[in-house]
């Protein structure tokens, strides 16, 4: 393995004994390792971080019966205290800004700051969704431009922009399929989902009122085409396939799967969570896909923000386009972009829409960020994104497969994520130990115990925004932790010992849920 950087310098532990476990401080803080109380424990009712004038008059008499008896019991903080509270809390978090965040299937890539700047321009950030259309032409143009990019990159016929996140996009896609079957007078009640699917796929199908039937995987980690064909019939509304799949492998039979599903009148939903592996290289439309959500917060770099917001536009085939939800944008021959809503849907020939998925037009703040990212990379850059993402994953796979079992490693290259399992670790050592050991190394762990089809799965997705130096550092740490496990280093079971918290008692949290602060007595 090469040096961690061109100069050969690398950080060391120094005199490790210096970090004395028994050293006690009065504050609970340890140097720059800061603890922070709850806002309720440091705030008070008299404090306010916003200067507010005295209201000019008393409430109207008509409002009197509705007035609150007491102001909400929420202590306030002045601005300096609030800034400090949240800044200190932020220091307890790991983020992509601090290092690799190799969560497989989550695509934690760098979030360019130009995107943040653009999204905050008043013309985008300070515009109401129901302003007269003439005052929001630029916003509609931005949506139309984003739609154009998504359609061209996927080779599909249209796109529904409004879904709020990936799982919401899945619902949208299934609603379109349902609407198409209803329109054809067909009653179909089954969605086929591979065993390796994200949990959202079966959950979405069930939430949407379909029965879920599982399709087994082949020994090489792909959908079993023969098994799938056996399940097909007039009761099947469609399949939900992830491609590249959650084992990080391209579904070689995707076209044959689509053809078989179409032959019995079903539709093909593709979970686009892993689009980053093929963006600019392969167009899902060429694989026979009818609907696919695109997580703008994955492939197109809008920030995850500790769990959202996401954005899940759904690209649609010619067959499903007539059923897409309201609202959407359309450009007329005069060059103007229109917002198609309930009152003008007929005028635009969109008579079969099933209604809305959400109140307004979708995640505009994410649209502007994603469009900014696409324009920055261009078609050539996006192709390079997929190539570098796949190269980085294969590099991790090949540099670690001698220590960690790679269940599909022998069969060929992976796509954008490298999959390992814990089957070769000694008795008593598992994926959890590897993950927690990585935390002590200063890295966020990979996705663990997913996909379910692999025992003790570890799914590593480095993304294209990791440098060679960064990858080598991560690989060195992963190898070190794996070696500790292989050598039976029992101290690994205590990991992490260097993070803001040791392993947390999740059983206690679930057995006696404390979901809100109830004062001193809440423990």
């Amino acid at each position, binding site marked *: 393995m090469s040096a961690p950087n061109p100069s050969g310098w690398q950080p060391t532990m120094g005199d490790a004994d210096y970090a004395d476990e028994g050293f006690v401080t009065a504050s609970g803080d340890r140097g720059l390792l800061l603890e922070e109380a709850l806002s309720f424990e440091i705030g008070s009712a008299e404090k306010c971080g916003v200067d507010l004038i005295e209201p000019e008059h008393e409430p109207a008499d008509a409002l009197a019966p509705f007035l*609150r008896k007491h102001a909400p019991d929420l202590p306030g903080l002045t601005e300096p205290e609030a800034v400090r509270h949240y800044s200190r809390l932020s220091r307890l978090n790991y983020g992509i800004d601090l290092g690799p965040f190799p969560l497989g299937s989550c695509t934690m890539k760098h979030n360019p700051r130009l995107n943040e700047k653009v999204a905050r321009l008043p013309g985008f950030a300070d515009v109401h969704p129901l302003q007269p259309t003439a005052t929001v032409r630029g916003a509609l143009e931005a949506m139309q431009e984003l739609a154009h990019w998504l359609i061209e990159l996927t080779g599909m016929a249209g796109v529904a922009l409004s879904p709020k996140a990936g799982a919401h996009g899945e619902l949208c896609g299934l609603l379109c399929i349902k609407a198409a079957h209803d329109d054809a007078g067909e009653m179909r009640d089954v969605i086929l989902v591979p065993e390796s699917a994200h949990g959202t796929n079966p959950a979405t199908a069930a939430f949407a009122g379909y029965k879920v039937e599982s399709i087994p995987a082949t020994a090489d980690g792909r959908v079993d085409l023969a098994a799938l064909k056996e399940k097909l019939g007039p009761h099947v509304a469609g399949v939900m396939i992830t491609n590249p799949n959650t084992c990080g492998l391209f579904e070689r039979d995707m076209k044959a799967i689509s053809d078989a599903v179409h032959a019995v009148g079903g539709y093909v939903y593709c979970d686009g969570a892993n689009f980053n592996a093929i963006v600019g290289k392969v167009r899902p439309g060429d694989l026979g896909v009818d609907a696919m959500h695109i997580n703008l917060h994955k492939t197109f770099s809008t920030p995850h923000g500790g769990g959202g*917001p996401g954005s899940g536009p759904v690209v649609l085939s010619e067959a499903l386009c007539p059923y897409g939800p309201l609202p959407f944008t359309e450009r007329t021959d005069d060059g103007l972009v229109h917002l198609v809503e309930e009152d003008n849907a007929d005028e635009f020939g969109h008579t079969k829409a099933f209604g*809305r998925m959400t109140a*307004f037009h979708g995640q505009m703040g994410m649209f502007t960020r994603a469009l900014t990212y696409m324009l920055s990379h261009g078609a050539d850059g996006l192709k390079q994104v997929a190539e570098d993402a796949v190269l980085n994953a294969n590099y991790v796979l090949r540099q670690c497969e001698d220590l960690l079992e790679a269940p599909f490693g022998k069969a060929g290259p992976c796509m954008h994520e490298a999959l390992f399992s814990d089957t070769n670790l000694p008795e008593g050592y598992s994926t959890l130990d590897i993950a927690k050991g990585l935390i002590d190394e200063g890295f966020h762990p990979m996705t663990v115990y997913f996909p379910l089809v692999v025992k003790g799965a570890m799914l590593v997705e480095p993304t294209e925004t990791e440098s060679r130096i960064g990858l080598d550092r991560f690989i060195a740490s992963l190898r070190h932790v794996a070696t500790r496990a292989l050598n039976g280093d029992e101290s690994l079971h205590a990991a992490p010992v260097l993070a803001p918290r040791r392993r947390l008692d999740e059983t206690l949290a679930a057995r006696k849920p404390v979901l809100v602060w109830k004062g001193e007595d809440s423990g």
Partner: protein
Amino acid sequence: MRYLPLTQADRTDMLAAIGAGSVDDLFCDVPDGLLLDGPVQGLPAHASEITVERHMRRLAGKNLAASDAPFFLGAGAYRHHIPASVDHLIQRGEFLTAYTPYQPEIAQGTLQVLFEFQTQVARLFGTDIANASMYDGSTACWEAIAMATRITRRGRALLSCGLHPHYVSVAKSMARFTGDTIASGTPDLSPQPGENELIAQIDDQTACVVIQYPDILGRIPDLTAIAEAAQATGALLIAVVTEPVALGMIEAPGNLGADIVVGEGQSLGVGLQFGGPYLGLFGCREKFVRQMPGRLCGQTVDAAGKRGFVLTLSTREQHIRREKATSNICTNSGLCALAFSIHMTLLGGEGLARLARINHARAQATVKRLSQVPGVECVNSAYFNEVTLTLPKPGREVLAKLAERGVLGGVALERLYPGVDELRNGILVTASELTEDEDIETFATELAEVLS
């Protein structure tokens, strides 16, 4: 390309290290003919930061920003002052660029914020508990209906006429799947929403009554009466709050008998953003916790006995329960929840109460002045910061003309209820702490001219 750290030399070395001849060897599983041989056609090549920013600025410049006009829109999205520190803090990379806190040892920042957020929402709503957020108010509303059907094992949802029509549309879209029955209607322009008519429609198949508070026309329904009637038949009352600032002033729905309270949290910290991302708020009685959708953060201790927080009760969720989950939601609105929580912390309960009184006072001033314009009448008897006005002409046309004069004067009921003749002349007008006397005067003057 500025976002790609690998050099050409890195790529060559790495391909050699893994024994691949070219990068396309790594795409060998893609069937012949499906791998594109060059960049996707019809799209531009990469561009510099200068070029991209210029392009996006040009698009942004074609929009009339709320801050550049007298502004009076509401109807489920509200413009409020956001303290400068909110946006600064949510842009700290440790918040902005973190993932869902699946590894709690290195995500205590996000988790503690969620615990504080859940507490704030529960106290604001008057509910026992709240979750860690949903996508927005409209989707939270459907999730509440779905939850009520699970709890009551009944399939009929009764939506009040005062519920935002977009929320109704979302519920109807979803009910197509589930087979649930959605009963809804169009509001009339009475000064107070009529509870009796709604109560008369509750039957023994009704899973829930859904009522917006204040309603789409800005009126304030009597929740207590409806809660009693609903609960007497075994149905749940779901209250929907699209303007949480109102709860600084009017009683919390949970204190008036609502079983589930959902809302749109965009008013605090999030901003207008042309409709998204917004923030779904979700609170309910503690006994329903295992039927709740979405993520929950709970308090616990670590191996050394220190207080800490984790995502909990995950056995309700899709990544564990798959097709048996309570919802398919995964990603929610974490960063918007952070913004809401910071803004709420800066205000405190007393600050929110004062902010609410200011909003109401500005609305009173707006109504008083606009009512002096010939032909303009206020529908509402009671209101918080939003009212329905009737005009002598169709509202949509009037608002379009006002926009040409640089005034963003409200939301036309015709846009929300196309084809309903009785509502054509109505507009929704909202004021806030950002509404200045000068804005009101300009609105009134221009409105008078447009109507004359």
